[in-house]
């Protein structure tokens, strides 16, 4: 019995995504072929570019870092029955506040506190931006989907205004819409020295940085929060059955508020990979829809922290391959996005179909 369950789980969690990926590559291949390219050669080149060398691995991990944090943010909301579409706005606000804290608040303190300050303010910024929809939902019952979407636009416009007009970089002839560079005491160091020490030769130019470590810590944090604490029990209870939660004496309004704030804080942290670990400054609209990709990452990862690691890795690799395709082939950028979407859809659909098939079989066997 145990054995067959193990095999079924293996099929479901490892083999099914692999099959899905192959099906997706097959469909992608047809598209590439119709565009007049050789699918086999294209794939070989692109996969080799992303996964065939340490520099590629570093980039994949760099991409994965942001996806993990954004995915966790959305997943925490989902577990509490809240659809936080506002991660995008929370990332932008968190990123800007973090950069501003590094530039203007950190210098007041001794240098060993600079990095903690920027990190804390990134989470704080995200939480602040989630607070408004959270309070509207908890106290007045206004649906968070509408609130958070609107807050995205406000966040987008506000950060744009501030970084263009108020905090734009100084001392250059043609200033970009970005802040001044953060002091090196306030940013996240790169990870290449560690990788090089264990024999993986990631070059100095590679952007993978300590945000990856923070992301993994956050995976562990989220797991413990949701499945080991009283608060997590209440969040999950609320997400599954609000009536029973109410009856169990759970303060529904408070839990909605707290869940949304944690989700927002996690989204704010999703900014650090870019702001503190890569550019060392806030660039206008740096996130490019990261908050929305976070929704897909969370769903594909079944809202489970471990699942999110794998789905974030997949998205991270796909992003790297997209760049490879852009560099090595003449396939237009738009087609690359189409391919990415096809792969994700195939995996999601394929997994569902397989789950249903296995469930049916299970029932038939017990019959």
């Amino acid at each position, binding site marked *: 019995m145990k054995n067959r369950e193990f095999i079924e789980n293996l099929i479901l969690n490892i083999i099914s995504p692999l099959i899905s990926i192959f099906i997706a590559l097959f469909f992608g291949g047809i598209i590439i072929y119709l565009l007049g390219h050789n699918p086999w050669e294209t794939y070989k080149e692109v996969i080799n570019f992303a996964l065939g060398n340490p520099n590629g691995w570093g980039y994949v991990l760099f991409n994965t870092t942001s996806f993990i944090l954004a995915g966790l943010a959305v997943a925490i909301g989902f577990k509490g029955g809240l659809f936080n579409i506002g991660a995008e706005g929370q990332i932008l606000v968190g990123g800007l506040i973090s950069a501003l804290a590094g530039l203007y608040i950190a210098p007041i303190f001794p240098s060993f506190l600079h990095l903690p300050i920027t990190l804390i303010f990134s989470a704080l910024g995200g939480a602040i931006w989630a607070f408004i929809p959270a309070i509207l939902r908890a106290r007045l019952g206004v649906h968070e989907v509408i609130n958070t979407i609107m807050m995205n636009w406000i966040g987008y416009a506000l950060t744009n205004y501030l970084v263009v007009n108020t905090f734009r970089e100084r001392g250059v002839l043609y200033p970009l819409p970005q802040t001044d560079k953060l002091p090196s005491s306030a940013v996240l160091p790169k990870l290449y020295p560690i990788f090089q020490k264990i024999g993986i030769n990631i070059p100095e130019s590679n952007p993978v940085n300590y945000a990856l470590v923070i992301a993994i810590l956050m995976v562990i944090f989220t797991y413990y929060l949701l499945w080991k604490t*009283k608060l997590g*029990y209440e969040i999950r209870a609320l997400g*599954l059955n609000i*009536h*029973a*939660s109410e009856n169990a*004496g759970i303060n529904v309004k408070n839990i909605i508020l707290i869940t949304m704030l944690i989700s927002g804080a996690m989204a704010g942290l999703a900014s650090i990979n870019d702001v503190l670990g890569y550019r060392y400054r806030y660039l206008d609209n740096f996130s490019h829809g990261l908050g929305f990709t976070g929704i897909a990452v969370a769903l594909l990862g079944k809202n489970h922290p471990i699942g999110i690691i794998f789905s974030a890795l997949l998205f991270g690799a796909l992003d790297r391959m997209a760049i490879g395709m852009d560099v090595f082939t003449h396939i237009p950028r738009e087609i690359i996005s189409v391919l990415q979407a096809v792969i994700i859809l195939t995996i999601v659909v394929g997994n569902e179909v397989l789950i249903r098939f296995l469930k049916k079989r299970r*029932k038939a066997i017990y019959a």
Partner: protein
Amino acid sequence: MEEIIRLEGITKYFPGVVANDNVSLTIYKGEIHAIVGENGAGKSTLMKIIYGLYKPDKGEIYINGKKVNINSPKIAISYGIGMVHQHFMLIPPFTVIENIILGSEVKNGISLNFKKAEETLNDIINSLGFKIDLYEKVENLSVGEAQRVEILKLLYRRAEILILDEPTAVLAPQEVEELFSILRKLSSQGKTIIFISHKLNEVLNISDRVSVMRRGKLVNTVNTKETNKFELAQMMVGREVFLKVDKAKREKGEEIFRVEDIWVRGRKGLDVVKGVSFNIREGEILGIAGVEGNGQSELIEAIVGLLPLKKGKILFKNKDITLERIRQRRLYFGHIPEDRHKRGLILDFSVAENCILGLHYFDRFSKGIFIDYSKVYKHANEIVEKYQVKTPSIKIPIRNLSGGNQQKIVLGRELSFSPDFLIAAQPTRGLDIGATEFVHQLLVDLRNQGKAVLLVSADLDEILNLSDRILVMYNGEIVGSFSQSEVDEKELGYYMTGVKKQTELKEALI
């Protein structure tokens, strides 16, 4: 007697179960044939096969001696078979006549010919001896009237065989009597009636013959005149059943719980509980009877703290708890919610996690901010053992357990902190006879230990069997109060339907 339907060796498999196992049954023309059995015995499946909703995997159906293939309800109707479902299939904003002719409209060009339908219907109604306004909207009808519309719908389509799936589950006793008189008239007109129920009193009252089903098999078919309640119950369950609970007399104890003049505004903004007062003492079960929707649910929700009081006081052992929150109140009483799936359990949580729902913040289950799962599992195992819950593991989602086992988890959890007071709302709804017996015995045991129990139930047998005092709720008010010995089902029915009302409620506060 002339046979009208003959089933031969009907077998139907569902994933995991044999819903009908080689069922053979003959039904005669003009008889009222009751089919009884516990939940999951296969009654409904068999009826759905006759009505063409399911296809049998094996077996044959003969109508008037001819072998037939009933692949859809449409074909069933063409053979004169009609079914009244438990949940009515009516469109509330349509009038009675619109609902009846829907699907078989007589047309004058593009407009509907109501006149012709009206004539036909009036003939049917007169022959059955009841009244109904054909141009009233269905949403304004009582449940009993809506059921008559369903029956008219079948007769309008010239049904000769009427299948009624638990028709009395939603009716007050007086309405049941009216339904039965209609069924008797139909039977005397030569219509055949198949009546599904698990209420043995009714079955004995109305039917000519009874078929008992258990675990998909037809146990026996007997003439109603030659059987009794105990024999039927035994056939249903497969062993001897004690329909009466033993209850020793008890002296009046200290007051445990009291509500004074409480008023509750419902979710639609109207007053749904209007000035209710009662108390419960140690060692007694107070039963609240009433047709559903007369304020009982809101009364309980207000006591538990889910709905705010508009006016009034709630006292636990003389302490005013009116302003306390749910979490504080939970320490005073256990609560079995009327809808365990909605309020009592989180179906996707494991059995163990459900065992601490509402108790999860207790110190005994935690280490600081963390839940101590080793203690939770120990607690869950204790409940599973003590209440003989059948589950392969305490770590599987509680969704996979049967209703009876789910209810045992709720009971075990609510009694695990030994409260002096238990609120039990519809505690045996949807449970089979075995589980019902178990719950009843448990409630009586609590009473015998000197605890107080508030029992709200739509099942009059349950109320009469268990309660020491009985209150009747109608339209948000307590309209009658009795000690157990001074009232019967029929009398309660008059109060439940608002026919009678006491001016002085001498048994409510003692």
